[in-house]
């Protein structure tokens, strides 16, 4: 299974957070391609276009106007064609209940949003690296869960 570049989508309504994420991803030594979206609806509109190529991994902020992370997660998981898309939810909540619910609804990754840029970078780096393995090696996607 050959992969040239990891295609990533980031769905985040806060412009500052979007920049932080983008900067962190840019600084990670990995071949990536990043698309940015302001809320869940924008992202869904984009990937539901016919013939649209799908990202490997999407980061969804939990709290967003119009369509939040959970709603977006549920819509994505209701469709068979997105089954290979890794979904990472991130939020400031670290309640075990919230985290479990997110996983049960089909998220693969739960990120507790760090405040510090270097911490954010190392968390994202860990997420990208494990995703690279899932897209290039024979690992069972239905059991792919990661909490960072």
């Amino acid at each position, binding site marked *: 299974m*050959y992969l040239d570049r990891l295609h990533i989508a980031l769905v985040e309504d806060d412009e500052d957070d979007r920049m932080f994420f983008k900067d962190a991803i840019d600084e990670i030594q*990995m071949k990536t391609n990043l698309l940015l979206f302001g809320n869940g609806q924008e992202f869904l509109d984009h990937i539901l276009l016919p013939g649209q190529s799908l990202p490997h991994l999407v980061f969804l902020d939990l709290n967003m106007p119009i369509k939040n992370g959970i709603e977006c997660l549920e819509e994505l998981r209701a469709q068979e064609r997105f089954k290979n898309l890794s979904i990472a939810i991130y939020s400031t909540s670290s309640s075990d209940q919230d985290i*479990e619910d997110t*996983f*049960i*609804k*089909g998220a693969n990754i*739960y990120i507790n949003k760090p405040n510090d840029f270097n911490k954010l970078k190392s968390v994202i780096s860990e997420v*990208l*690296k*494990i995703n*690279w*393995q899932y897209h*290039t*090696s*024979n*690992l*069972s996607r239905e*059991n792919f*869960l*990661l*909490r*960072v």
Partner: protein
Amino acid sequence: MKFYLKYDMDVIFRKTLEQQLNNLQVAYKINGLGEIEFLQSLSAEKVKELTVLLSVYGIEIINDHKSEIVQRIKDAISEMVLDTSSEKNHKLSEYLPNKLGYSYTYLSSLFSESTYTSLENFLIIKRIDRVKQMLVHEKLTLSQIAFELGYSSNAHVSAQFKKITGLTPTVFQKIIKKRSENKTSFKQS
């Protein structure tokens, strides 16, 4: 007495290639110069054989040797994780060089260069993937899994599981169980 020769490099190349490929006894297609296609994937031994056959004529395979080795490493590691009897007896640093015929240092640096992980870490990821399967599909206990996969203790499996997934095996099992219950109730309603 001298002869003067006229020749066509393309014909020479094609004939040479055909002769050598026929020696290999696998179905192939020459897609124009410089590209051959095999109708089924070649075993590592066949690739090695072909490399030797062609090298005599100064022809080199530019396939990506690196990706091929990486794939062979991954296959070998998967085998190692599945075949628990061998895993107990082998260390990665002995097993891989024996199996693939390259030094561990070479394999290790080549692997890290192109996979964004290390050999050791990849083995752990594969093993934890196996642990998950044993928990979910084979319904084994952690102690049984620890024994099967040659871990020193339950605590060791648990700790490695937590390190890779961020979850304990118990929480993981609970999530996967609830997920499948959700799916069933969704289908029924």
